[in-house]
Structure formats: structure tokens, C-alpha cells
């Protein structure tokens, strides 16, 4: 049995030596927010935090997760109680299909923990390790900046209502 500490809870799981961490989290713990696309460390959609540091779960063995604090998107916020970063992504619509989104949010979490007050350029640079094929790029960056404001209690929700002349 392998003991995994995930999102503040402990689990004893039967992990075979060759099993990939993302598979263990998804298939055994039902954490489908760990989205796997490339499975080779390139796209970042499977990003989780290992002791607060972002890691691609598709490149880790399940047993490597032992003795670490693992956080997945499920540990960040819930449907009824979103994390400010998640609220920001909703408000800025920092996604289209949403497949890459948990990975971006996990990356943003680690980034904002380090740099709570980033510039647009820093946010854009920090997000460039992940891939969004839908092309939500500018809105992802805006989400990160919006989240920074929220986390510092400086955010006023803006409403997009008018149908003409909306600027991005």
C-alpha cells in the first residue's frame, strides 16, 4: 500500500510500480480534475502541486507521491465555494473548452503564492508553460491578474452587459 496525502486527506492506495501518478489520482481517487492531454509533460493540463510546487502529474510515478502533500484542483475550491482564482477565471472567461483550465489554475496558484502582485508580463510569462489550444490566452492572463486583485481584497467585480463595442 502506498500512502498518499491528497488535498489534506490521507489515502492508502494499491499502486503498482509502473503506475503514473495522474492515473492513480484519476482512476483510484476519482480526481478527474487532473486532466491528462499530452501525457509527456508538455501541455501542463495535468498540473498539480507537490508541497506547493507545480508538477506535471503525468510525468510522476504514483509511488513518488508518497510523503508529499499533493494538491489537485479539487483541493483548491468547490462548486459552491470557489477559490478566488477560480472566480477570476469565471469572470474573465479564461477558457473555452475548459480542458486546460485546471492546469492553468494550479499554475496560477503556485505563481500567485510566490508573486502576489504580478505585472501583466510576469503573469503572461508564468502561464506560458501550459498550453491552451482554444486560444483563450489573453483571458487567461487577465484571469491571473484579476485573481491577484481578489486575493488581496482589492477586486470589484465588473459587469459586462452592453452588447456593443466591448473591448477585450
Amino acid at each position, binding site marked *: 500500500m502506498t500512502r498518499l496525502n491528497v488535498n489534506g486527506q490521507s489515502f492508502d492506495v494499491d499502486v503498482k510500480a509502473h503506475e503514473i501518478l495522474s492515473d492513480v489520482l484519476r482512476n483510484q481517487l476519482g480526481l478527474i480534475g487532473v486532466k491528462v492531454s499530452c501525457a509527456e509533460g*508538455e501541455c501542463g493540463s495535468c498540473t498539480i502541486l507537490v508541497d506547493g510546487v507545480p508538477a506535471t502529474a503525468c510525468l510522476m510515478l504514483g509511488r513518488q507521491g508518497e510523503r508529499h502533500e499533493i494538491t489537485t484542483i479539487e483541493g483548491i475550491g468547490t462548486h459552491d465555494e470557489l477559490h478566488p482564482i477560480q472566480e477570476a477565471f469565471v469572470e474573465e*472567461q479564461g477558457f473555452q*473548452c475548459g*480542458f486546460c483550465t485546471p492546469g492553468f489554475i494550479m499554475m496560477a496558484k503556485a505563481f500567485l503564492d510566490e508573486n502576489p502582485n504580478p505585472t501583466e508580463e510576469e503573469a503572461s510569462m508564468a502561464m506560458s508553460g501550459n498550453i491552451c489550444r*482554444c*486560444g483563450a490566452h489573453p483571458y487567461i*492572463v487577465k484571469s491571473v491578474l484579476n485573481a491577484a486583485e481578489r486575493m488581496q481584497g482589492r477586486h470589484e467585480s465588473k*459587469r459586462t452587459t452592453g*452588447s456593443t463595442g466591448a473591448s477585450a
Partner: protein
Amino acid sequence: MNVLHKPKKFKIVGQGIPVIDAREKVTGSLEYGVDFVLPRMVHGKIKRSTVPHARIKRIDVTRALALPGVLGVVTHEDAPGLNWMGVWDNYRGQILDGISRFVGDEVAAVAATSVEIADAALDLIDVEYEPLPAVLDVEKALLDDAPQVREEGNVRDEYRVVWGDLDEGETQADYVIDQEMRYKAQNYAGIGRNACICTWDGDQVSMWTSSQTPSELQTGIHQAFGIPMSNVRVVALPSGCSFGLWWSNNFMMVTALLARKVRKPVKIELTSQECMAAVKRRHIEITRGRMGVAKDGTLTMADFSHLMDNGAYGFKTDVYFFCCDLWGGARNGDYRVRGVNTNLVTSGCMRAVGDITMGLAVERLADKCAHKVNMDPLEFRIKNQIKSGQQLRMQEPRQHMKGNLTDYIDGLTEEQTGNWPKMFHLSSGSTHELLLKGAEKFRWHERWKGWGVPTRVNGSKRRGVGVGTGAHCCGVEFGGNTSSVVRLNHDGSVNVFSAAGRQGQGSETTLVQVAAEEMGVPVEKVSIVTGDTYVVPWASGSSASTTMFRTGWATREACRDAKTQLLKIAAREFFDGIDHEKLDIEDGIIRVADDPADNRRIAIDELMNVLCSDSLSQTSVITGRPNGVMPPTIAFARQWAAQFAEVEVDVGTGEIRITDYLAGQDSGTVMNPKVLKNQVIGGAICGAGFVLYEGMEFDPSDGRVLNDSLLDYKLLRTGDFPSDPEVFFVESQDPVGPFGARGAGESPAAAAGPAICQAVHNAIGVWVDVPMTPETVMRAIKENEGPKAMAS
């Protein structure tokens, strides 16, 4: 000057509400195909061909079957004649037929108790191939003595759009310029992959998979396996970004075949490599063209011939190019398209098909003409592009249509066409307003310094600006009609049932907005099902920018129908028999419209619970459906994009950086500005990727895809595109679209390439082939310097 057709007061149309599945997306709980599981499910894997073209002489599965945990294997011997034609031309072939037509083609499949066992069993299937000659080059595939990929031959009938007389156009021209452009295939490179889960119980087949087109898939299964459509249930799950990739794919049919064999729920989950090398891609395309221009800037002729490869199983005759309409002001035109098969992975419709490729060639050649007569590219577009109300150029039907569109329309009665817009004429919008408004916002006249003249030079870095335009359809009818059904519940809530896809374009949200606006209820009162063919009416699905225009039309019509039924009951039971047309609903309350003095009010839920005078019971069924049919949209509706880019080119390294971006979109009434902005910029980024980095590489010896991973296939990332692009809308309302809305997702992808390419040209004075990688840029600069250096 910005006084556009200002919509009458809408309550919900135009609101940037968050998409209805936003919370699921940000919490990771949204279930895509890969996330879906069923109890007792087993796992399938596909054995793929290692050769580009071969007949399978012998296939032996004994060793695979003997592996513990293997439950069954299917080969072409299990699928004689199982043929699904696909409703469209993106796949035409049998499920498995004993011939392999590209490296990666499906040869067999295994079901086992685990993915690992299924995988291991693939190696235990012994295949003996009898090699056939292969053709891996699109031009060679045209030759008479080329190896034939398909029984029908390689070459499809030519598709042609003609107007006027080219010879005349040539006589009228002061200059005729020609050009050839070659495009590598763009990979969908879909983040999200896909899986298909299928059960075959008795004579019931159920399938869960990420798909844009649930109904087409239902038809496909019905056709292939000969089971009644009523016994086929397809549940289209949301997909990762699709762009046309996840529509109906053969791996789904293979999953059904396996499920039939083992009679257990089977899941086939594709790897990223399979998605990038064995499903589908954009065509390899070549456009040759000539354009004639008079000194006053009038385009006198447009003569284009376009070749595209369908890969192994595509069957398209043309690329659905609407650039011929965009540049419809050319006095004479002849556009010819030919599709040919090759022994390469299947190709098909990818976002802005045709308009991203052929459209780029037309725009570039038009730019060269403008340059020749020294005219501003913006003025040149305004002068030569189509305006609202003018005749469309693309009128004739495709090979797979029954008969001829003109004959069909001529044959309709006046009653049938009563309030249709004028057929074969543009119903609304154009690039005109977009270009004017964009020029102002972008300060175009200040920033554009002339053809091939940089805006700014700083050492080796040169900045230039460019403008590009793009067009596409708003859905087409060839894939089938569109439909929507709505149901009104006792509590006043509304269910919408529409066949549509959820690939991130947000149309489930915008359709809900259409329904809420028409029904006069808050958005929270409307819920929608788009994917389950057990409940949604058959419709062509989400492709060709159909959903807002066609499905939105159907949804509004269905709501109108339900509303009429409701208001008739209200008139009878509550408003003393008043003409129901005098009633209206606002915020779920029925009242007499336009009569503030009349203070009678009844809420929908109250009325639904009134014991009616005719039945002595409450109204239990109000279901709305569209009355009448939608006019053929290809005969009148288009979407328009105009985009402005500033780039910085380093002439020392060949690197291109986009430094400023403005995207204008005319898709009629904006249903949801947040959704539309995302579509517009997502499109621009897709187009930017296509002209800057993307291109598939095939092994010249056997056609296998060499860059089948995101490691080797470069996509734009944040930082590669400005983080603060501006988007603006022109809302020229369409007479048919729901509340005046039209399609949106594809023209933005078509406009980006021309804008960026022109900006590069203006920065460095050279036209660069696409993708404009640093090497290509450097080569173009060198080639240009060569003759100049010699001349001086």
C-alpha cells in the same frame, strides 16, 4: 458614424453572463469523453497499420486471444461491408476493410480487462501485408498513373464558382499578377484527446463520446450496423478544443464493433499521438492564382485554382471557401477546387476550412494588386469587397447535394419563400463598417506608411502594420436540417433540447440566452440538453459555424411556438378571451403588452397550474417546435472579420513578434460579448499559429507523421500573442438569424493570417511563405537581397 442597427431593448441578448458550465470547468468536474466510465467497463486498443498502403493478406489473432485478460479481437473479418458514409465528406469508408491506406490506419482492435493487457495484445496480432504502391504527394496523386488510394479513384470532381468572363477581365486589367502558395497541413493538436465508450445490449447500442455532432453519429451507427435509429443512443459529451476534429470518427465505429463482439461496455481512449497522427488534420493545399487590376484599383478578374489532399478517407470536393464572396466585387471570377486522395492520414474540415488557406492566397494576391496600383490595403478592400445586399458568388451546389440549389429555390412557391431574404444575395453585414471602425481604433492612417515601409526601425528590429479580412458561412444545410424542441414545465421553467456540440464555443449558453429572451423568462429558468439523441431532435450538429445561426433560429422558433400555445391558454383562462397576440411575457409574468393601464398579471407557473375550462385539469403539455423551415443559409448568410496587426520582425534572426492586435467582428447581434470575444481571439490565435509556426511533417518514405507530439509541434503560448488585444463588434442584424445574430467562430481565424502576413511584408518589404518560421523569414530576406544586391 457608428450608428449601427441598434437592437430594440433586449433583456438577455447581449449580456456577458458567465457560460453555464463555468463552475464545472474551473473546478475540473466537467466530464469529457476521457473522464467517462461505466460499471463493468472493459478497455479497447487499436492496432494500427505500419505501412502506407497494403492489402492485409493474413491476420492471425490466436496469440492475442490467448493472452489472459483478452476478451475479444476484431479485424476486417468481423466487419464485412460495414460501411458508414458519414453525413459529411470528412470520412468515407468502411470501418475495417482489410486494406491499410496510411500509416496509422485502423487494422484491428482488442478488448481486455485493462488498458495494459489490451496494449500488450496488440503486439500479438500477426499481420501479413501485401504492399501496394503508395502516393504521398498531393500533385502526384493527380497523375493518371498514380497509385489509386480508393476504389473511386483519387481525384474528385472539380468544384467551380464562375462569374463573368476571365478573358474580358484580363482585357480590362492594366496589370495581371500571378502567385502560387503552398500550405502545410495544420494539426488540430487538440488539447483533451478523446475516448469512446460503447455498450451493445441486445439490439440497443449506446455510445458516449466527445462529439460536435451527436445526430450524425447516430446516423452513422445506424448506417454502418443496420440497426434502427430508435435503438441507437449517442450521448455527445463536451470535448476539449475540437475545431472540427471530434465530429464522427472511425475510432468510434471501431469501439461499437468491439462492443458488439464482447457484449460489454468498451472504452477506447486515444493517446495524444493517436489524436495527432491517426484521426484527422487540415488538408495540404496549393493555391495558384492570377488577379487583374485596373489603375484605379478595380479588380477586373480573379482566377484561382486550388488543390487539396483529402488524405486517405476524406472525400471533399471543395474547401467551402467564402473568400470568393468576400472579394466578390471582382468583375470576373473563376475559382476551381479539386480534392485528391493520398496515402496520408485523413484530412477534413478544420476551423475556417478553405478560408484560412485559399482566403490567405486571395488576400495576398489582392494585396500585391493594391501595391501595384499603390493603393492603401484598406481602401482596396473597401473598393473590391462585397457589400450587404449584393449578389453572392458562391451559389451552386456541391457534388453531394441532390440537384441544384438554384433549381430548388426556383421551384419553391411564394408561400414557401414568403418572408425569406433575397436568395443568392448577401442578407447582412460586410467588411465595410469593420474596416472603417477598425482604421479609426487602430489609427491605421497614421501607422501605415506605405507598402513595404516599416512603421518604425530600431536596429535590426522593424515594425510593420497590416490589415486582413476573412469570411465564412453561418452553417450550411447539406449536412441536414436544424431543429430544437422546448418544453415548458409547471413551475415556469423551460427545457431546451437541441443537437449541438460542446467544444468550448459556448453555444449551450448562447442558446439558453436565445430561449430566455424569446420566452420572457430569466436565464436561470432555462436549462438545455444538447448531446443526448434519446431526447434531442435530429440536427446537423455544431460545424460550419452553424449553431448560433441555424440552431439558434430553431430554438427561437420553438420558443415562439410554445409561447403562442401558452398565451392562447392565458387569453382564454385569464384575459377574458383577448387576442393572444396582444399578450406578452416579461420576467415570467404574462400581461397585456403596450397597455400600462391594464394591470392584469399572471405568472407562467400560476397559469400552468390553473384548472383549465376545457380539460378541467392543469395544462400538462406545452412543447414547442419550429414551424416551417429555415431558408438555405448558404444562399444568403455570411460572417465577416477584419483584423489589424502590428508585428516586429528581427531581420537578424528572422523572429516575428506580434506587438499589437485589433479584431473586429460582424456576426450580427451579439448574443454574449464574453463568449464572442473569446471566439474572435481564439480564432485569431489559431490563424496566427497557422501562419507563424504550425505545419505537419510527413516522412517522405512512408507518410507517417513525424511531429506527432506537442514537443515537436509548436503552438502559440501566452506571451506569443498580445495579452491585451482589442475586440470590437459591428452588429449588422440579420433578417433570419435569432434576434439578428449570425455565425462567428471561423472568419476570425481566416482574417488573422492575412493581417499578420501583410504586417510582416510592410515591416521588411518581402512576402514570406507560410509558416513564417525564422528560417523562412531569413531565406525570404536573402532571396530578396540577392537580385537587388546584384542590380545595384
